[in-house]
């Protein structure tokens, strides 16, 4: 791992975009559940999409690229979690006021300013992930800031937008999406490029996550969280560039642990690409035009060629002058310039390309076939070639994309949106060109939303902020380690719900939630109980009706209601024996050493007698 000075020398710039699902009951523009798990597919709708000019009459480079891929999209619809709005068969309903309130609450938590009027916008997305071909998005905050990673991080903007749909499957000519999650409200938080190292990026991401989770609304004597928790509810995008390189966005990092290694690798990738560019330019490298070599290779026994030729397809090649060695040069773990070019070609639906820096034996291409290709292309020593075999139309599109990418190797690090390929290795692949601002236009089906000082005042009055919550927890839980665990625990709202109602038992609640529940879960006990069940157990404890040891015992039964809790206590029985009853019990043990008395009673009444009380009576 390099230190910050290494990155400073490279002219490293890095910013984060954090996307987090809000914990509203309903979706952002309709009344479908924003929480429910998927039910069964009730209908499939198939669509085509195309790029249209944006508000300024310009077709955005990312949308026109996607449109040229000519794929169709199938949307799986679900009964409770999707409706006509989600499949673009009905105009959006009014913006969910809960989502607006929550988003503004979070804006205040990040110290952001809010616009006087929120303008719903459409962000074109033609990869099919939205049946309407755009994602609705609203700019809701700007010029905020937080302390994180040892520095001040500026928050440039915050957005409230719709979740996209999830991919079910992909084929060369179509993609199947599930639209159950589409329209769930998301908040996006963008930092300025103030981050100075990959390690700091990770720390900033962790801090933003913590603010999101710990900011809440004060109501019902507890704190209602602003955001959902669990896998897939938060995603990080990182923007990285170095001097001479370009801004590249890596999308959808779900594991925060990989943030630093992904950034390290992106820096490495740009460094290597710039080195390659320098050497290619020095060699006067050039990219040739594609040539149809189907007739030359139709007898080939190479599997990929045989398959394409037998189904009436084509084989196309192009000469890359001066590229020999460059295509096979490693730019990231298991990634080469050749794989970058192949990623572009894949966008046409082909499986990839073959290039001459690869071991061509592996594909079954003979030496004489290779020489014949080189001869046809006029390739000399020091030249490379790329080959693609598929249907003629796919070949032409694939070659077009591949050649574009090869040309870029001579001039720049292309501005791209990339996806994580392997989160352990921290590698990424090309998804689409980086979008510009021209893909935004107003959402004309919705009215703008006025935000007054009164609105913001009302919101902040009921907001519980991170600092307040953290300092309270640290005060309530004297064990610092336990307090930190509680701050990061998904069960923090449960702790707060109980301790605000059953007083004076904070430590017992904390240890039960953080330690006992984990222990029970390891023995396959269901601990996902209603919060009022927990409350009834802890209330009995607080009132001295049961012992601490009995708490775990009751939970072992996974009671569903407070009444069931009562039943468990009376049938087992688990009532606490204390005061005069306990004294009677001690008397019954007869004349013994104090230690023996304690042992005898505890062996029989471990769950009913509080050890401390017992010791006090016997000792006294």
């Amino acid at each position: 791992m390099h230190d910050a000075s290494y990155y400073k020398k490279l002219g490293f710039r890095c910013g984060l975009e954090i996307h987090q699902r809000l914990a509203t009951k309903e979706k952002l523009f309709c009344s479908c559940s924003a929480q429910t798990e998927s039910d069964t597919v009730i209908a499939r709708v198939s669509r085509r999409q195309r790029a249209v000019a944006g508000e300024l009459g310009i077709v955005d480079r990312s949308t026109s690229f996607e449109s040229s891929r000519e794929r169709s999209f199938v949307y799986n619809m679900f009964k409770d979690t999707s409706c006509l709005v989600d499949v673009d068969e009905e105009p959006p309903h009014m913006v969910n006021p809960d989502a607006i309130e929550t988003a503004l609450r979070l804006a205040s938590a990040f110290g952001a300013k809010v616009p006087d009027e929120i303008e719903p916008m459409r962000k074109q997305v033609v990869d099919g992930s939205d049946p309407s071909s755009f994602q609705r998005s609203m700019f809701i905050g700007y010029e905020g800031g937080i302390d994180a990673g040892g520095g001040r991080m500026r928050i440039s903007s915050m957005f409230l937008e719709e979740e996209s749909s999830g991919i079910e499957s992909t084929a060369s000519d179509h993609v199947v999406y599930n639209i159950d999650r589409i329209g769930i409200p998301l908040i996006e938080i963008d930092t300025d490029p103030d981050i100075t190292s990959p390690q700091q990026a990770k720390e900033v991401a962790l801090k933003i996550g913590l603010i999101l989770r710990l900011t809440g609304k004060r109501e019902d004597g507890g704190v209602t969280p602003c955001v959902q928790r669990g896998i897939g509810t938060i995603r990080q995008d990182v923007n990285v560039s170095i001097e001479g390189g370009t801004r590249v966005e890596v999308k959808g990092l779900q594991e925060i642990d990989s943030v630093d290694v992904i950034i390290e690798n992106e820096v490495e990738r740009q460094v290597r690409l710039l080195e390659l560019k320098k050497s290619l330019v020095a060699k006067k490298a050039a990219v040739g035009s594609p040539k149809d070599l189907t007739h030359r290779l139709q007898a080939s026994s190479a599997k990929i060629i045989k398959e394409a030729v037998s189904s009436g397809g084509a084989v196309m090649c192009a000469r890359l002058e001066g590229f020999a060695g460059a295509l096979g040069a490693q730019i990231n773990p298991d990634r080469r310039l050749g794989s970058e070019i192949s990623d572009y070609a894949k966008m046409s639906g082909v499986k990839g390309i073959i290039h001459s820096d690869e071991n061509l034996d592996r594909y079954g291409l003979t030496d004489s076939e290779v020489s014949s290709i080189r001869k046809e292309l006029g390739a000399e020593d020091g030249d490379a070639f790329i080959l693609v075999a598929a249907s003629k139309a796919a070949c032409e599109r694939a070659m077009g994309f591949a050649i574009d990418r090869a040309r870029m190797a001579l001039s720049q690090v292309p501005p791209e949106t990339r996806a994580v390929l392997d989160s352990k290795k921290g590698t990424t692949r090309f998804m689409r060109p980086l979008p510009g601002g021209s893909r935004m236009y107003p959402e004309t089906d919705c009215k703008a939303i006025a935000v007054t000082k009164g609105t913001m005042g009302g919101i902040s009055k009921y907001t519980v902020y991170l600092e307040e919550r953290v300092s309270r927890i640290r005060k309530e839980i004297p064990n610092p380690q336990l307090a930190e665990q509680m701050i990061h625990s998904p069960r923090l709202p449960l702790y707060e719900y109980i301790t605000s109602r059953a007083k004076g038992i904070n430590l017992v609640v904390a240890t039960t939630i953080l330690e006992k529940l984990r222990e029970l879960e390891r023995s396959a006990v269901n601990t996902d109980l209603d919060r009022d069940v927990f409350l009834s157990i802890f209330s009995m404890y607080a009132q001295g009706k049961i012992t601490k040891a009995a708490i775990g015992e009751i939970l072992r039964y996974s009671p569903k209601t407070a009444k069931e809790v009562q039943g468990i206590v009376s049938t087992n029985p688990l009532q606490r024996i204390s005061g005069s009853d306990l004294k009677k019990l001690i008397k019954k043990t007869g004349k013994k050493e104090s230690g023996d008395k304690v042992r005898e009673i505890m062996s029989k009444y471990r769950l009913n007698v509080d050890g401390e009380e017992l010791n006090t009576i016997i000792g006294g």
Partner: protein
Amino acid sequence: MYGKDVSALLDKHGIRVGDTILLLAGPERYEGVLMPRVDVGDSSIIVIKRKDGYNMGIKYHAGMKIHKLAAGKGEFEFPTAGAEHSRSLDTVSLIYTGGTIGSKVDYRTGGVYMLTKPQELLYEVPELQDIANIHVSNLMSIASEDMTCTEWKKIGREVAGAFNAGSKGVMITHGTDTMHYTSAALSFMLQGLNGPVVLTGAQRSSDRGSSDAFMNLICASHIAAKSDVAEVGICMHSTPSDNTCSLIRGVKARKLHTSRRDAFRPVNGSPIATVDIGGAIDYKSKYRKASKHKSRVSLLDGFEEKTALVKFYPNSDPGIIDFYLGKGYRGIILEGTGLGHVAVSPSRSELSWISRIKDAASSGAVVGMTSQCLYGRVNSAVYRNLRMAADAGAVYCEDMMPEVAYVKLGFLLGNYGEKKAREMLPVDIAGEITKRTEYTEG
């Protein structure tokens, strides 16, 4: 539209929508392109487009400073494409009348606005130029709900003119809400039709990549260029998927959903054909075929505007008929219940429609009876109450939809007078009445 204060400030600095501006409010700085302001809402909000493409609203207050950083290009113009003509393709006329299909964002209202240049549509659907030589006629730009019989006639004349000038077929882009009225009117008005007249529209505006306009236009142009149908039809999505469109007879089509792509369904019949995006036409029922002998298309364009469509419902006041007769109306189509009922002997006798129907008939007006069920046929004999309405003078309109019966009655009265209108109302003239009710799914 910006309010007085903001407009004055902008004028003072010579700032126009589209210019890049800097707004200073104390320590706050806002930079972006000035966007037009929606008509509704707070007119003192200044909307700018930020560099990231997002719009934001900033409330104007006195003391705010504004600077023009760069001049914009003036009005936002969408790219256009002219039609390139090929000798091997037939000519199809595209008559543009307005509606969602040719709409874009209106920055004045924040709503959807009709395109003024059909060429903008050709830019976005270049496929049309491979199907036919498209001759674009920008006839009008009218929202569906603003259409009247004046526009029907104007469209009819344009259609006749297009055929007589050599078009193989005609496409009409139209707002969807009243498209089935226009299609019915054209079905009756156009005489000697010898090619397809296809109305099409969109349920989602064409400024979005998911719009149904693209496929509807492509499918409609396939029909207009390649089919031998010599009728007026509506061509829109068959399902919510972008797979096939249905060509539905103009007098049997109805919009049955407010927003779905497949809102238009054939009522009391099957579609004439389905057509996929590649141009494969699958004929589903009998239709009038174009003959090889070219004939001149003409327009019978009388239309009696004093024709009304009246809905019967429980508690409805039959005095509405008096109202119309008082205003000189000559035709009334009733939308009765079930097989064609109106109240005959309700507990409150003033709610009976029988005497009013009699009054109308004896005054010479034509009263037609249809059903609000839409699906099925009215019948004047099954119940005594039906017979009473028929005896009072109501003409039972078979399996004709109320809206079609309304257009037909206006057309008949406008061209033939009351006596002939009464005779012809229950007789098929353009496919609006079928003798047998065929079984259809759904």
